[in-house]
């Protein structure tokens, strides 16, 4: 079986983690999430969606499962791994005082999982105050530094200038980590979790807006831009790496299977989340050539002027 993506969601109390996790659990896209959370009590799951529950686990009719990890993470994780074939994605909520970078390491070591990035939710109005809190300031800053992607939530609660100040402050701490702004944690799951990247086919996609209904009163627009690249010949390895390193910061995630001129018989898996990229040899598959998918914010200009696109035959916006 292919490794299941494993994403860690960090962020301080009130930053929007629970809102995001609620969305994952109650979505009807067919994706089966195993979600590990600190506290069941904060979740708002319609009773109609619940198939069964115990003091430690809630199973939903849509195939999702939620486990509590307040009392220790490893037991819930072991249970999930025992049933990993039942899930498409494992998402772990890291408390505001945990170290998400250490949690994601689990996926780097476990063959059944693949590390899908550390996403830190940020309460844009309060983050600077939290960052200088006497008790937790150091931990808040560490989490921001360790993030692969920052979700700047409650963006509309600040003025444009206010938001720019916070973004600059975040940039100074995190050093170039991509940031996405949203309200009510309504950031697109493609950006946050790389959902199209997680699918087994790397297939063509168009840029589009998808609408989710969070409740009867609120409809949410998720926005992202994806392009796909294809080539029938092998790529120059150093050119590829250089071009991949110079992708604009509006590109949040990427995934591809590529072949290189110097190693024609080998297939390589390239993955990007935020500033972190990995390149690893994978088993030979029947497909020929190289193909890649990039996902970015609406600001991402797509194939236009993209150095990486010039290395491929085809770039589909």
């Amino acid at each position, binding site marked *: 079986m292919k490794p299941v993506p494993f994403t860690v969601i960090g962020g*301080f*109390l009130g930053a929007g983690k629970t809102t995001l996790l609620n969305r994952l659990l109650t979505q009807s896209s067919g994706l089966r999430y195993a979600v590990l959370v600190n*506290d*069941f*009590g904060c979740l708002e799951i319609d009773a109609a969606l619940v198939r069964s529950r115990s*003091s430690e686990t809630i199973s939903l009719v849509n195939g999702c499962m939620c486990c509590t990890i*307040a*009392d*220790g*993470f*490893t037991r819930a*994780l*072991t249970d999930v791994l025992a049933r990993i074939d039942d899930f498409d994605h494992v998402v772990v909520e890291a*408390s*505001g*005082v*945990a*170290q998400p*970078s*250490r*949690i994601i*390491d*689990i996926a*780097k*070591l*476990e*063959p059944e999982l693949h590390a899908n990035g550390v996403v830190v939710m940020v309460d844009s109005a309060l983050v600077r105050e939290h960052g200088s809190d006497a*008790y*937790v300031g*150091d*931990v808040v800053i560490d989490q921001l530094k360790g993030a692969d992607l920052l979700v700047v939530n409650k963006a509309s609660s600040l003025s444009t200038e206010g938001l720019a100040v916070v973004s600059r402050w975040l940039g100074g701490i995190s050093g170039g980590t991509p940031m996405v702004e949203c309200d009510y944690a309504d950031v697109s799951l493609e950006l946050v979790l790389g959902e199209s990247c997680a699918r087994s086919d790397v297939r063509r996609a168009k840029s589009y807006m998808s609408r989710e209904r969070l409740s009867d009163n609120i409809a949410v627009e998720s926005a992202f831009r994806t392009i796909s690249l294809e080539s029938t010949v092998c790529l120059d390895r150093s050119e590829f790496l250089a071009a991949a390193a110079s992708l604009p910061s509006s590109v949040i995630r990427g995934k591809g299977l590529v072949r290189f001129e110097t190693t024609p018989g080998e297939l390589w898996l390239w993955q990007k989340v935020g500033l972190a990229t990995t390149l690893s040899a994978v088993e030979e598959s029947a497909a020929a050539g190289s193909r890649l998918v990039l996902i970015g914010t609406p600001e991402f200009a797509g194939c236009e002027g993209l150095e990486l696109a010039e290395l491929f035959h085809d770039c589909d916006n």
Partner: protein
Amino acid sequence: MTEVIRVFSARKIITLNNYCPRATHVAVRGTRVLGVGALEDLTGWGNYELDSRFADNVLMPGFVEGHGHTSEGQYWQHSYIGFYDRRDPDGRLWPGLKSIDACVDRLRLAEAELHESEQTLCAWGFDPIFFGDERMSVKHLDRVSAERPVLVMHASGHIINVNSEILRRAGFDRTTNITGVNKDSYGEPTGELQELAPQYRAQRVAGDPLTSVMSKAVLQSFAQAAVNAGVTTSTDLYAEVDDTSIEHYQAATKAEDFPLRLVPAMNALSLSVEDGIRRLDEIKQLNHDKLHFGICKLMTDGSIQGFTGRLKWPGYYNGRPNGIWHTPPETFMDMVDKFHAAGVHLHIHTNGDEASHLALDAIENALTNTPRSDHRHTLQHCQMADESQFRRMKALGTCVNLFANHLYYWGDQHVAHTMGLDRARRMDAVGTAVRLGVPVAIHSDVPVTPLAPLFTAWCAVNRRTASGKLLGADERVSVAEALAAITGGPAYSLHLDHLVGSIEPGKFADFAVLEDDPETVAPDALKDIAVWGTVLGGLAQRAASDT
């Protein structure tokens, strides 16, 4: 009432009561004390049988361990390879090992005893601090076994060592670049693993040999360890309260000859606060003489020697970054507030002084919202509290249970690495607690350090590290104060002082039976007093010995 009255005679009885401090006889009816004093003072109760088996012994109130874990009973299923001598529950003395090679030798013997080829060999108690620059590595553990997984837990609780077989199964090699997979100068993993992810992977491929499994046998083993140490009441200070665990507690303690009163503390995170409050009420209905549910344990931070305690400025002496909050402070404050409002009795683990500051803030906030008399919430370990924090404890009516054993087992390390000399001299300030009138107890946190209250009392009286260094002369307490801190002090912190902690009418006939007199031996020799065993509810229990 036709219950027999038995009168025990002794060389001396140290009663720790407020009206007759020393006696020669104690009258017991059923499981409780009728009276204590001279024989002629007790005959008025009626016909009695004289039991003079302790005529040459010294009796004290049975010791109360206010911070222990029954997992001690489980640890001894594995190999002990610590630096210090340690006795197992069966009374066998395991000599301390003074070199890594000596650890290998002991493990090779243990390995030869294992029959199942798949079973992981586990060891505990190892501390590299004693071996200078030499670190344990796969080089050593592969000599124990090249095929069988071998896993060693460090005494600090934060590092493990594994052999090549576990590295191979886990997929750890020179290409592994994960924090916690320590490597040598050639870039090869040494087998030393830190941090959650590497340790989780290693334990998983080794068959999760260390999953804690509480059982009646584990509790019986722990109870025997208690008898060996003169302990008659002990906490199990991070208990699961699911139905199976409750059944084990009941099955063990209902046995008439079970030689210990258990006080399991519900792990506050095992359920939501609301469910936890309900569960506590449910399980309290099951209480009997040897089983006392009701207290609840919360944790703020980690440990100082593991660099996971939360410290105030200036932080760790060697510059390590500050430690880890167990729970977000805001959540912690809210939990304390809710439990306190529901009348729950809280025991709060706090090691660093930033952590104990938060604990005091939380208790203060809870009391402001819900005034409550005689709550006796207890700060556990509380190793770095300064005088200002002790004054807050006094003002808030909080108890403190100090980790006096750390002075010996980690004192030198605290001076050199974690706190520096100043803060080490004022650590575990039993003297200040007594001086300011904060109700105080001292503990072992078994199995972190051995269960041996007389040794813990010795630490509070002498404050000497393993190398003999004196840490804070003015924080030393008298023998009398130390003996109170292993009897009435912890009993009070557990709301059990009406039942145990001194020898007087109405309380359980629980005694520590000693070969020597703690009031007359040299204070330096307090730790060397041999324990004959205990009496629990009038029933004598002999310490296990390997002779």
